[in-house]
């Protein structure tokens, strides 16, 4: 049967992995290709590189990183961060990325979703949605979770699916960085509202959190950063734990 996926996410700036919280106090944490390869050896199902290089002039460096990664890492690679045009996507896919992720640009230009999926296929398009609790529901935020849009997250998820998204990467901005667990309510609401895969993100601190969001939260995959980067848990440990709790994971 189809297994649930564990997806490490690396923040990449100027061809180096960086660690930090909310883009402050960023520290160099190594070579993305080497770290990516290590994760794939440990059993990661996919990799995400988030390009946090702010300036347009430095964008070509992520293409180099992707090209080199394609030479050494043979699991799916998704790249996100500052993607605004079909041409941006073309360059990344030609360099060796399998999927790209758009967030703010999907909100400011929903037609981009359709343009990308018609040109390259929906399977290469992940639409990332950042959400914060708002009353009984959740509101979509853009610009790295700083700007409210007034849109309902569950409704927006349905909309992006209609427009051609292949997957949704759902981040709870309330939980992100807290290590208190994912927002189960948000994940479940979006997962039951759409028929495309949902990747949960934001809040993992214990292995039990992964179980909760994959089980009750109905997520198809989990995106993890801190719990792996700081060496607290390995991908292997996470999978062994999930396996012991009855979640189908790939261990070969």
């Amino acid at each position: 049967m189809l297994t649930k996926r564990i997806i490490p996410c690396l923040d990449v700036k100027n061809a180096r992995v960086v660690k930090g919280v909310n883009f402050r106090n960023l520290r160099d944490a190594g070579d993305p290709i080497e770290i990516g390869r290590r994760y794939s050896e440990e059993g990661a199902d996919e990799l995400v590189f988030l390009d946090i290089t702010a300036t347009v002039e430095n964008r070509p460096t992520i293409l180099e990183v992707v090209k080199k990664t394609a030479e050494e890492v043979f699991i799916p690679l998704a790249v996100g961060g500052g993607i605004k045009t079909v041409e941006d996507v073309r360059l990344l896919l030609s360099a060796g990325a399998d999927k790209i992720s758009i967030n703010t640009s999907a909100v400011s230009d929903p037609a981009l979703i359709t343009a990308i999926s018609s040109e390259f296929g929906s399977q290469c398009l992940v639409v990332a949605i950042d959400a914060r609790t708002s009353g009984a529901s959740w509101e979509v935020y853009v610009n790295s979770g700083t700007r409210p849009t007034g849109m309902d997250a569950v409704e927006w998820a349905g909309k992006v699916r209609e427009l051609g998204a292949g997957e949704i990467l759902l981040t709870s901005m309330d939980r992100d960085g807290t290590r208190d667990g994912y927002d189960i309510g948000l994940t479940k609401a979006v997962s039951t509202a759409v028929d495309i895969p949902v990747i949960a993100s934001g809040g993992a601190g214990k292995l039990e959190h992964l179980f909760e969001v994959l089980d009750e939260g109905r997520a198809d995959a989990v995106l993890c950063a801190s719990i792996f980067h700081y060496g607290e848990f390995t991908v292997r440990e996470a999978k062994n734990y999930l396996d012991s709790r009855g979640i189908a994971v790939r261990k070969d």
Partner: protein
Amino acid sequence: MIAVINYRMGNLRSVAKALELTGERVVVSGETGDIRQADSIILPGVGSFSVGIRNLCRLGLLPAIREAIEEGKPFLGICLGMQLLFEKSEEGAVECEGMGVIKGHVKRFSTNMRVPHTGWNRVWSMGGNPLFNGIPDGSHFYFVHSYYVTPEKKSVAAASTVYGIEFTSAIRHNNIYATQFHPEKSHARGLKVLDNFSKLKGTDNAYEKDNPVS
């Protein structure tokens, strides 16, 4: 020399880089000359059936592909590259039908499943397929697709996978091999599939046309 056909569909770089690990010379090309010179051919691809067949038609690649197959050269279709071997897809063809080299159709997963089928799933071999040499049966491989093939002849199905239904995840007909999953994205076991393919020689299997089941 292995030719990886570039018909503008999908991430070719990963396929090429994965193949290079086998030690064979790899050429990524959309030129019929390169396809003719190759010892084996790979047709990769992600995206829509109609755009795929349209590109193959427009780039004038179909005759060289058919020739290579008829000459008995080992041929591997990956994902869309597998589906295009068939006659027709529910996705609909614009200018051409599928290549029709393998009898059967391409269908969409039903709406009660999450589509595309995205992620790692088990592949169960029907046995005797050199692509799976040295690979434990039931290994996980990476899939990302919304359509699946239904070969007319049971003997063409080389492996199956379960996603709601049991569907054919690899085929073999003489020198024609194909996988619905992406070996270049399936880590060590996927690389082994490509390595096994790279070792196949043209004289191993004489090509016979896949005739309709009577």
